[in-house]
């Protein structure tokens, strides 16, 4: 009765408001996701993109990185990244087009940001996600230094790391979506 007395335009508008608010959500799904709080996203989002997006506060140099490396990385990766139980991390420059290519962080990896991302998420193998951001910056700097890409005292941080150009960066061809 009350509705019937309202002008038709208001009634139609009310219906559109209801539909509109529904329409803001997907039409096909049950919409059972819960809005994620920004602190939840910050805690979960550990990926770093090549432009440096996602890099945290902090910084580190190769000098600091070396002592962490000796304690936590040496057993698998050998002296100065020479490889042992696991991947060689340094050297191999200029070998990729030869008969015995040596893929290392320095000779192969296209982006320096990937070092920070991977070390932080997955290393050391037996204790992943235990390194502080400062330690990860320092280890990243040490690996870059071992490969002759930065100096021993050069600090890596959210600004400097994305600007490091890896030697093999321009030798990757996008198979998807294909060369433009």
């Amino acid at each position, binding site marked *: 009765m009350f509705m019937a007395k309202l002008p038709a335009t208001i009634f139609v508008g009310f219906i559109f408001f209801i539909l509109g608010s529904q329409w*803001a*959500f*997907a*039409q*096909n*799904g*049950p*919409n*059972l*996701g*819960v*809005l*994620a709080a920004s602190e*939840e*996203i910050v805690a*979960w*989002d*550990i*990926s*770093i*993109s*090549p*432009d440096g997006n996602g890099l945290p506060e902090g910084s580190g140099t190769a000098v600091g990185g070396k002592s962490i490396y000796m304690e936590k990385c040496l057993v*698998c990766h050998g002296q100065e990244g020479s490889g042992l*139980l*696991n991947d060689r991390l340094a050297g191999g420059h200029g070998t*990729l*087009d*030869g008969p015995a*290519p040596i*893929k290392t*962080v320095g000779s*192969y*990896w*296209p*982006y320096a*940001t*990937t070092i920070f*991302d*991977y070390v932080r*998420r*997955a290393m050391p*193998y037996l204790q*992943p*996600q235990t390194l502080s951001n400062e330690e990860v910056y320092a280890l990243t700097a040490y690996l870059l230094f071992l490969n002759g890409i930065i100096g021993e005292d050069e600090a890596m941080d959210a600004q400097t790391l994305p600007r490091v150009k890896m030697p*093999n960066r321009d*030798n*990757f*061809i*996008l*198979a*998807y*979506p294909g060369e433009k």
Partner: protein
Amino acid sequence: MPESKKNIPMEEVAGNGLLHRRVFLSQGAALISAGSFNLLTARPASAQTTVDIPPWMKVPGAGMSGYGSRAAHEDYIQRNPVSALGTTGSGGSRTPLQSLEGMITPSALHFERHHSGIPDINPDDHRLLIHGMVDRPLIFTMDALSRYPMVSRIHFIECSGNSRVGFNIEPALGSCGDLHGLVSCSEWTGVSLAILLEEAGIDPRAQWVLAEGADAAVMSRSVPVEKIMDDALLALYQNGERLRPDNGYPIRLLLPGYEGNISVKWLRRIKVTAEPTMTRDETSKYTDLRQDGKSLIFTFPMEVKSVITSPSPGLSMSGSGLYEISGLAWSGSGKIIAVEVSADGGRSWARAALSEPVLSKAMTRFRMAWRWNGGDAVIKSRAIDESGAIQPSRDQLLEEKGTKFNYHYNGIQSWRVASDGEVVNVYG
């Protein structure tokens, strides 16, 4: 016997004894029962006959069980786990393809490739976060995901490092599964990821998503939005039951036809992005080094491929006679339209029968009748998919891709059958 022979000529369709498949159809069966030929399987059955009643017919059998198990006689059929030095869970285990039939891989024998072991995930505490370039970042519980409409599809997953030994200078020794067992095929059931991304409101400028697992390696890969919206599945079930822990329990991203590594197991996070994240597993690994020192990145679809599973190394032939050659073919680009088999080292080829159903991006079983004359023979198969791609010979593959490629090996597999019935891997 002579009459059967007259009705059913043993029509050769290619050299060295490949026969038309009608030899195995109903009339062929009559002919076989007439005793003209020895129909032998690659695994010869026991020749023992007896008039005694077997012991299992003389007592009531075992009771029912809550969760079944296979016959103890079959327990020798195993994956072969190999872990990297210093680890227990970094490495892989391969499907024993030579011991299986049909197109579906039993879940317990699906291949594994893990980067830091199998996490022990409590589904009540597991969450999927979708965020990044979306209007509404959303968190889903497993209970919530279970209420979404589900789809079931049969797809293979193949590790891009499968058959890598084909790059070796000398042919590797091993069974078919040892060489090619990083491929398996299951029925996967789950929720279309496109529905969840639509609910989150994906930014039209987004081109990629990062998919991340909840294992200790937090394995992550970038996936084109185009693929996600096309056919990406959040798989919750494998072959009718919840995923096994070694296949990503409780959620595995399934990207049909793409290299296996990108079907991220134990999925916890989808971040929508403009550009690829360039993770370690899509730059340092799973990229394809060419002869000239340049590398291809984002080589997603697995190429057309086939392999004869029977006979194959370890399944020796026992005497000349009629055999069925059986194998598997698959392609990341769609359906298999034909598989050709040769029994004379590739001089002549004949089309094999394809077992129904033949599905897109799924294993397809092929079969071919072969009368083995007991002499030395090289048998091989090559598959053709609906995109027109033809499985290359090893020489063609190495010529095209080089020897430093290390991934996506799909060269034709040749098996040499020696006159004593032993089968080994050979090139050419």
